[in-house]
């Protein structure tokens, strides 16, 4: 079987590429080593949180900062993608999110500050509609911890928020009285809170904590699939506002996005083979002819006209760091890297040079040789954390780059017929 577009990787970049390609009616398959890291992510899509990267003040208008970045950093993935394509991907994602029953909202002109599990405030651009709540301007905030949940300490988060917002923030513990006999993570609790009796127990405990007219910050455990129902029930019954805070993995907010997105793509006719890395490629004449997974000592070949490479960076295992080199795992593409890879100060505010390592591309997102700029494979389009020349951790741009580059890669792969430029 011949596919129009073969997407390698099942994270946000891969899904975004599959979305774009399927929108133009193409036959698409997603092949990936496993389920992407989207499952353990926050579910927020940050486009540009800090720019210039040395700035300690969060970007308030990411659209404007992006325009500046595109002019100043011509190698940055955003410069390769272009402002117009960034906006297109943004709109396409919002539309798709509504159709998949997980409506997202936000604007490229505004970053919202969202609290993390330790009470840091992170600038983000796209978030679930249920999270459209402003921590900075809320009159009264209560941070709620759930006794049964591991790894969330309300007093700790509250104290950090107090320092940043300059006002008193209350924290409370609630005990749901679940005697399960083991530690519960956020996914477990989210399953539990879909049950009406447990949900009522939470509502009762929150009532005792006096949350009326307040903004309740609570770890994101309010239902795996029926969170909209759970959140609005709490808000209506207690006359309060509820904002979920993304937790440590398994992150329910990441799960909701990953699972809904995948189901949505399936309904659009996108095929998936997940659980096996692409470990065979055949390329001739600067074109990829076929790829394959190796299952049971045998190659299963997957053929397509065009390919999107979205296998991630170092964490996603798209890039592998060896003592003397960094390798791109599927096509063995050359890696652009700086001489010094790691600075001793791990939390250096300017970031680690290693973060900039990756595959260099041209404006068509085709992989190029870092020295000569010559296109290496004309029908391969690279997206997401595999890309070189940016630091997603310091800029807070990881998911934004993934979404926008994935979308552009998908559009170009669907169009096809490319030679060099």
């Amino acid at each position, binding site marked *: 079987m011949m596919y129009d577009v073969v997407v390698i990787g099942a994270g946000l970049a891969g899904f975004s590429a599959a979305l774009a390609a399927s929108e133009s009616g193409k036959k698409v398959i997603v092949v990936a080593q*496993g389920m992407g890291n989207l499952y353990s992510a926050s579910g927020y899509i940050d486009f540009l949180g800090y720019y210039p990267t040395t700035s300690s003040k969060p970007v308030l208008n990411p659209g404007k900062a992006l325009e500046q970045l595109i002019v100043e950093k011509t190698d940055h993935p955003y410069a390769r993608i272009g402002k117009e394509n960034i906006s297109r991907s943004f709109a396409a994602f919002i539309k798709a999110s509504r159709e998949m029953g997980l409506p997202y909202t936000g604007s490229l002109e505004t970053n919202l500050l969202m609290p993390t599990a330790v009470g840091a405030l992170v600038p983000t651009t796209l978030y679930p509609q249920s999270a459209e709540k402003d921590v900075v301007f809320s009159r009264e905030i209560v941070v709620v911890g759930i006794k049964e949940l591991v790894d969330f300490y309300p007093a700790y988060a509250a104290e950090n928020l107090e320092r940043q917002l300059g006002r008193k923030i209350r924290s409370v513990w609630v005990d749901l009285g679940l005697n399960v006999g083991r530690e519960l*993570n956020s996914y477990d609790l989210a399953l539990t809170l879909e049950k009406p009796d447990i949900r009522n127990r939470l509502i009762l405990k929150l009532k005792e904590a006096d949350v009326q007219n307040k903004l309740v910050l609570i770890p994101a455990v309010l239902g795996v699939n029926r969170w909209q129902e759970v959140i609005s029930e709490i808000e209506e019954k207690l006359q309060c506002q509820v904002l979920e805070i993304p937790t440590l993995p398994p992150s329910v907010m990441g799960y909701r996005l990953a699972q809904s997105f995948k189901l949505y793509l399936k309904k659009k006719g996108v095929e998936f083979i997940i659980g096996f890395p692409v470990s065979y490629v055949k390329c001739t004449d600067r074109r990829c002819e076929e790829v394959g997974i190796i*299952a*049971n000592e045998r190659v299963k070949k997957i053929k397509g006209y065009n390919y999107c490479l979205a296998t991630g960076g170092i964490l996603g*295992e798209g890039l592998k760091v060896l003592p003397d080199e960094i390798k791109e795992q599927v096509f063995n593409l050359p890696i652009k890297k700086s001489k010094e890879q790691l600075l001793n100060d791990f939390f250096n505010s300017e970031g680690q040079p290693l973060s900039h390592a990756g595959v260099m591309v041209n404006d068509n997102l085709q992989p190029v040789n870092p020295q000569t700029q010559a296109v290496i494979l004309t029908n391969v389009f690279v997206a997401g954390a595999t890309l070189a020349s940016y630091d997603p951790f310091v800029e807070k741009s990881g998911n934004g780059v993934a979404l926008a580059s994935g979308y552009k890669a998908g559009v170009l792969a669907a169009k096809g017929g490319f030679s060099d430029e």
Partner: protein
Amino acid sequence: MSKGDERNLDHCLKCSTCHTQCPVVANYLAFPGPKQLGPELERLRLARGGKAPFEIDEALNYCTNCKRCDIACPHGVKPSYYNIKNKAKLKGKSLNKFRDWILAHNVWWGKIGSQIPSLTNFGLKFPLTRLSMGLVGVANRHFPKYEKKKVIISKEKKEKKALYYAGCYASYNEPQIIQAAVNILEACGYQVELAPAACCGTPMVSNGLLEEAGKLAEKNTDIFLKYIQQGFKIITTCSSCGLALKEEYAHMLPGEKSNRLRKNIWDLFEILDEEGILPFSSSQKIAKAYYHVPCHLKAQGIGVPAANLLKAIAIKELIIEDSYCCGISGTYGFKKEKYALSMAIGGPLFQDIKESQVPLVITDCGTCKLQIEHGTGVTVNHPAVILENYLKKTQ
């Protein structure tokens, strides 16, 4: 155990993606899940010299071995490998052990039961039989009917040779699958022989009888390798048998033999896809059907070759769904204490099937079929049985 599998452990970042994909976790909160039972506890077990099982290891009895955790892992760890290994070390209650032993040897009951099917089927409905099964911990649910049918095979010698391995379900409960597979293989130009091997060992593996399963695997491997040497390809139509021969055997008997074996194991529709042979004509398509992807097919990494064929040839509107586990997991759903859980796991699948208002469900796995029919009342068929009707009439 091969060293490769132990090294695999270190790739676990504890991201818990497997935990969110476990059908048991989603329906039974006390179950610690694949991450904890697998790589997390295995580190401790190894640190303690791997002798006595931990108390928490009892929970391994609730692992269905569906392998959804294995393919979920973003980093290539296979929690089910550790679960199987450690389940075999459990002592357990003697009555459940006896029941598990009975269920693990379904091949014997199949052999005996299919001799005089009418008597067996009557006997299975008999109240005293149900009562005594209940006493040893077998769930009070419908058992598959036993059936015996002579398979007609062409004697003609051909260059392409297939050894068809039907597995227990097709052999004793639905021999139509065997005839359909033989007819399809013959239409593809194969000389077909039926494999003289017995059970693949999956029920033993799932019930913790790893040592016995290993011996069986060794015996079967030798039989298969003889045929492979003569140029036969081994063809399966049961997803679980296929996965056992491809993957489980490689874990139990790591080495050159099992590698040579797994290279020659093919799902019937996988080989049709690989060879690009389509001996079908697409007349009079069925309007609508639902294809349930068995977990053990998903774990083979071959995509959905049967569904793709069905879509191209036999079904106008085919819903292909791999999001759900049916919950039966071979013998799991036949155990009294797990029956309700098994039905709860299958719940979302049953609901999806009912909501799609299909008159027909198609799936490759025999026990998935039993569970889906039990949970929905909709007829379920094997893809080979459907596609056989579309073979080109030649000669």
